[in-house]
């Protein structure tokens, strides 16, 4: 919700304090408010428990000549108020996750964090998280090293130790969150997406009104006899299961032929992931007139003008809710593997006619390692060609290791790895929609043998100086360590009969 309010000359940010009930969110906010001589507003607080939110407005700091106004709010931690929490989190520019770090509470806290992280990463740019390790003065507080290790398994998140009751560390956590929010603002600004104008929820009363309006709108829907689609871009749906399985097979019946997918940027919200960028991509693809066709295997596929659209055989659903659930699951899989995936992707749930829905993926075409290899094969100079082959081998091996860390199974081939050397190679293929278990994927020399041996054979047919290229490859390999891509490639090349 970051916005530049020119009328006040301020950048408005929203820092949201999230965390389980009784973890110390309200205490933190009060400690923070006391430190900066502000007060906390708690609409409809009941028995000291936050029912809607706690609110503290603070103006401090500077961003490009504008004062920074922080709408600092905490969410209700009670399970039954999760919808409110969700709405408040959706508006965050940075989240401070307050966890009770006493041993008996930490497991629950870590699960809470595990739930929070993918939600914050659905946004692009993602919403930064600071972990506020609270109640550090407790006798049974988990040691810092163990805490860091456990948090590190969820995601790389900065941990700030606090004792909210004495305000220790509270301001440090807040300032860190503001920095994260400013990083996001810079990214939004660079993309021309930073909002302008006064925020719609300019004070606690406006926010309260807004929450109540949304909640009263939701109620009649539930009462309606006809199930309505979930709210727009709702990867938070409580029905979403945190699993990474791809779409399950729908039972086919006697139905008329499916509607052919036409990319439509005006399709309803909640059917596109990622919610904002996905629509922009759809807009781009819509102007290209790509018409997918059905393959002999029953998949739908289309390509052109730098884009691919694809839908697997199992991606047809006969029930809207089921289809939505799978869209959300796929969104989660994409988000969890975002570091490995190439940018320029969207998942679309499109009407397939007769009450059916089909899940599509749109992927921008990127240059693959295979194309780099083709350039190498055409290189006249044997030494340069050999070096190019070693480069390709190194890219493949590093991609294999990097893809192995993804939540989804990302096959590593010459066609699925982006060309160009990077310590974080990108997966540019279609997201597989096969079974959840990962098929065995070769690595090291076996991977190079599978991917490069056929090309080395082609090279021998195509180049008269192939022996010289191979000699150079072997020579480069032997100049490297035994367990290195160059050496493995040399061993593969040496086997060329």
């Amino acid at each position, binding site marked *: 919700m970051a916005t530049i309010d020119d009328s006040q000359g301020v950048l408005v940010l929203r820092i949201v304090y999230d965390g389980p009930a009784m973890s110390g969110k309200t205490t933190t906010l009060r400690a923070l408010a006391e430190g*900066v001589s502000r007060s906390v507003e708690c609409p409809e607080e009941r028995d000291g428990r936050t029912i809607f939110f706690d609110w503290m407005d603070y*103006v*401090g*700091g*500077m*961003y490009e*000549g504008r*004062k*920074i106004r922080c709408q600092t709010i905490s969410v209700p931690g009670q399970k039954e108020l999760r919808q409110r929490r969700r709405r408040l989190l959706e508006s965050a520019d940075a989240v401070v996750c307050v966890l009770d770090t006493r041993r008996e509470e930490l497991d629950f806290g870590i699960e809470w964090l595990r739930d929070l992280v993918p939600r914050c990463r659905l946004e692009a740019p993602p919403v930064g998280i600071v972990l506020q390790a609270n109640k550090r003065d407790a006798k049974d507080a988990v040691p810092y090293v163990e805490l860091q290790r456990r948090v590190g398994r969820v995601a790389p998140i900065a941990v700030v130790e606090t004792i909210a009751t004495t*305000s*220790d*560390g*509270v*301001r*440090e956590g*807040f*300032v860190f969150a*503001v*920095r994260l929010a*400013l990083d996001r603002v810079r990214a939004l600004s660079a993309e021309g997406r930073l909002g302008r104008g006064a925020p719609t929820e300019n004070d606690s009363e406006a926010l309260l009104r807004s929450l109540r309006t949304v909640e009263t709108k939701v109620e009649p829907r539930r009462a309606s006899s006809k199930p309505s689609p979930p709210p727009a871009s709702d990867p938070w749906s409580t029905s979403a299961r945190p699993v990474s399985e791809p779409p399950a097979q729908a039972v086919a019946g006697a139905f008329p032929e499916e509607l052919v997918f036409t990319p439509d940027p005006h399709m309803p919200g909640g059917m596109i992931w990622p919610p904002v960028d996905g629509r922009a991509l759809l807009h781009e693809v819509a102007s290209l007139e790509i018409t997918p066709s059905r393959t002999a295997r029953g998949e739908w596929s289309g390509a052109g003008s730098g884009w691919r659209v694809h839908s697997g055989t199992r991606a047809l659903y006969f029930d809207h809710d089921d289809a939505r659930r799978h869209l959300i699951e796929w969104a989660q899989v994409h988000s969890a593997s975002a570091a490995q995936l190439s940018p320029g992707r969207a998942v679309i749930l499109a009407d397939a006619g007769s009450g059916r829905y089909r899940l599509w993926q749109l992927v921008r075409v990127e240059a693959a390692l295979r194309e780099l290899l083709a350039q190498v094969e055409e290189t006249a100079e044997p030494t340069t060609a050999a070096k190019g082959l070693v480069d390709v081998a190194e890219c493949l091996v590093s991609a294999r290791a990097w893809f192995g860390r993804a939540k989804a199974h990302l096959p590593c081939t010459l066609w699925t790895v982006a060309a160009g050397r990077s310590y974080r190679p990108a997966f540019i293929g279609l997201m597989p929609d096969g079974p959840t278990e990962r098929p065995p994927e070769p690595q090291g020399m076996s991977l190079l043998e599978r991917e490069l041996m056929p090309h080395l054979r082609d090279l021998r047919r195509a180049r008269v100086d192939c022996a010289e290229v191979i000699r150079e490859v072997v020579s480069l390999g032997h100049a490297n360590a035994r367990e290195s891509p160059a050496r493995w490639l040399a061993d593969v090349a040496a086997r060329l009969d």
Partner: protein
Amino acid sequence: MASEKQLLDVLDKIQNDASGFIAASVVDLDSGMTLAVRSVRADFDLTAASAYNSELVKQKLKIMRTLGLTGTMEDMLITLTDQIHLVKLVGPSTFLYLSVDRKQSNLAIVRMAVNKHVTALT
């Protein structure tokens, strides 16, 4: 990074050693947000002063980059008719800001008071 308590201890010590002390803060350079504050004057807007000084430091660093100066900025001194303001960088992303009454102090005292205690912040 020192805790807020440690930062406040340092500011307290500077307050004791710098005669004519008006206010001091430890500031996050990136956001201009204060990490710790001490003030003896209610009318001195330390939050705003810290924020604007963060812009000042950023601009000066930009100037240094533009001029190709490779040295490291240690401090910035602003002398007003009635006050002395000292900005002392204490890390790549943090600085200490101190304001003293010029009638009751001088540059040597200010620098000494800051340099004596600032190492605890790094």
